[in-house]
């Protein structure tokens, strides 16, 4: 008890210094948490992948399509439950900066495979009835103020020309981490329009999403599926949805690594600040430590005093920092709109934040604590701040 009281008194002796150190810690823990969350957002697509979904694409690369008749062949492969078509549309809404993902999908099949997208039954029926209808996710709708019945014009980049859709439904995510920043419309509408505009580009599918009955057989079914199209004009590459999504992450690996590195740099910055605070504190109090030792306290007790003070400051800074992370992350998420479809502070991030704060608290006390424990009583009593 006496020990804890001593630590508290010591920590509050220089209120300004302690306050500034805690503030620095809060900022560091907060930015560390946000950066880790940004890295997590990068993996959102992979984390949302379902084990029973495979993605089949052209083996050359994603920019090459596959003929529509592949659909029937894929459906005939044993173990395949359902096949959906999807094309990345890549249209521009008003300004290229207002980017959000748009997919042309055969809605009847596609949404059966994605139960995490929740619809109001009535709206879904209205969407299925309207050839030029579209659905948008809740987050996307909130970012640009889309409401059911609104017209949504897009300028085609991959599929030339001006396109116009009517928002018929807004889908919700089954979980907080479900991506609700996307737009979907009817694949048939895209195909029919292309038939008129550029006939040779009709009946071409970007990717097939394949649902399988038994996730354990995904590797075997992928191989059987690709074997169907070996040595054909468009060879295919089938992988699990997770592997497909991780492929995107791998392409921007350098950026992810960069953000990770920087998130640890901030921990070192605050370590320098915190270590400095503790070093100054210990230097100023050398004569006190010497007095304590002269009174018979063991060197370990003196070192524990320094460590305890350091840990107390770090713990306060860490806890406040973690507490601030949630509201700031929520604000950041609304500000960046659809840039990060999912921006959730994970439990692992919170644990890492607290771990970093504690590590800083311990590391900062190492040298000063050692110095306090080793000081010779005579030297300590002679020392002046």
């Amino acid at each position, binding site marked *: 008890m006496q020990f804890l009281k001593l630590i508290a008194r010591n920590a509050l002796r220089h209120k*300004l*210094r302690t306050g*500034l*150190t805690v*503030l*620095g810690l809060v*900022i*560091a823990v907060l*930015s560390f948490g946000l*950066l880790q969350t940004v890295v997590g957002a990068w993996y959102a697509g992979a984390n949302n992948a379902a084990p029973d979904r495979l993605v089949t694409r052209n*083996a*050359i*690369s*994603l*920019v*090459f399509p596959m003929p529509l008749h592949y659909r029937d062949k894929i459906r005939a492969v044993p173990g395949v439950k359902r096949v959906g078509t999807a094309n990345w549309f*890549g249209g*521009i809404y008003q300004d*290229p900066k207002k980017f959000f993902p748009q997919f042309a999908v055969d809605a009847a099949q596609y949404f059966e495979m994605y139960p995490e997208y929740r619809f109001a039954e009535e709206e879904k029926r209205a969407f299925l009835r309207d050839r030029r209808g579209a659905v948008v996710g809740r987050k996307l709708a909130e970012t640009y103020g889309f409401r059911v019945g609104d017209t949504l014009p897009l*300028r*085609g*980049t*991959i599929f*030339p020309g001006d396109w116009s859709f009517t928002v018929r439904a807004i889908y919700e995510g089954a979980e907080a981490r479900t991506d609700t920043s996307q737009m979907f419309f009817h694949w048939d509408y895209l195909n029919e329009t292309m038939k008129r505009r550029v006939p*040779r580009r009709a009946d071409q599918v970007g990717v097939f999403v394949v649902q399988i009955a038994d996730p354990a057989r995904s590797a075997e079914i992928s191989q059987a599926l690709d074997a169907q199209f070996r*040595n054909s*004009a468009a*060879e295919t*590459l089938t992988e699990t949805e997770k592997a497909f999504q991780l*492929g995107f992450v*791998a*392409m*921007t*690996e*350098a*950026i992810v690594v*960069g*953000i990770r590195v*920087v998130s640890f*740099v*901030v921990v*070192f*910055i*605050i370590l*320098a*600040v915190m*270590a*400095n*605070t503790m*070093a*100054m504190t210990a230097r*100023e109090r050398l004569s006190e430590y010497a007095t304590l030792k002269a009174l018979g306290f063991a060197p370990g007790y003196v070192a524990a005093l320094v460590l305890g003070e350091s840990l107390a400051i770090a713990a306060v800074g860490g806890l406040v920092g973690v507490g601030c992370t949630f509201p700031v992350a929520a604000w950041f998420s609304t500000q960046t709109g659809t840039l990060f479809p999912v921006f959730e502070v994970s439990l692992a991030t919170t644990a890492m934040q607290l771990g970093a704060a504690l590590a800083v608290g311990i590391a900062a006390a190492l*040298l000063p604590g050692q110095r306090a424990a080793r000081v010779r009583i005579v030297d300590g009593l002679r020392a002046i*701040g």
Partner: protein
Amino acid sequence: MKAIPLAYSVRNLWTRKLTTALTAGGMALVVFVFAAVLMLDAGLRQAMVSTGQPDNVMVTRRSAGSEVQSGVERPQAALVEAQPEVVAASKETVVLIAQHKRDSGTVSNVTVRGLSPQGIALRPQVRLAAGRMFRPASTEIVVGRSIAQRFAGTGVGERLRFGARDWLVVGVFDAGGSAFDSEIWGDVDQMMQSFRRQAYSTVIARLADPGAFDALKRRLDSDPRLTVDVKRERQFYEEQSAALSGFISILGLTLSVIFSIGAMIGAMITMYAAVAGRTAEIGALRALGFRRRAILTAFLAEALALAALGWALGLGVASLMQLVHISTMNWQSFGELAFSFKLTPKIVLQSLAFAAAMGFAGGVLPALRAARLSIVDALRAA
């Protein structure tokens, strides 16, 4: 008015070595992040600017965001080629192929460009680094320097399989750090055949007189037979990197500013301690006749010297980053792009100003406190 010698401030830093090192170290890390981000952005911009030639014009399909998305039908391409301002033109096909990286084995998109000898002539910055150029109408390819370093099967003499054919690598070219270093080049007709393409992707045209660009653009824009966008090549490539460059600079600068708050707090703690520890000294200086302003200047100078130390350390480490090459997917083109950190004189000055601002912000309040001490109280504090 007499000023306190600078040596007083500097020697004070020297006396408290651990504190000085820790505070300057914190600042150095912030300067490092700040400078590294600017260097990365500068490297990216330089790669993109050196890709485009000032007198080349890029013709793509209207609203296409990249060469890969673009498609120019043969009659349209012929029409562009026949314009009076055009002295040389290259009709090209650009696709992406998924290839495995050498070290990690991960798959990334590589830009493959099909072009003619005329197209090579339009890029004077491209030089052969090894082997020879591909022969027209053959399935030979040459690869850019960054591709040869990073991707499997891209050495001279090796074969690469894509588009249901084997392609023989006959040379490696050096495009002077431009985006072409991250491309694979081969014969345009062979490429179009293997990728079953009927239309070209883009037309690159050289103008006899770069000043004729506006007239050409006006004519092509108003031609009802054409649905194309006409841009200077340099502008086109700058736009290609706009999204990536914006992401790097916005994220990086936001981080630098937030991190700098931490470093400023560090400087503030150090300077407050310096003032508190030297109260009697300050009283003595005042008693000797030094004005409040001189005290203020001396403590500010101490904070700025601390910042200068942090700047030198941070920038020193950041300059080593020039040896590092970054390779990532460019969001606009969806293809792999390699570039490096580039230290420019402007970044040296910007980071100096940034460090000085940190030092000033951290030092001004403690310095004011030092300057406000009354002589009697300060002397009594001893």
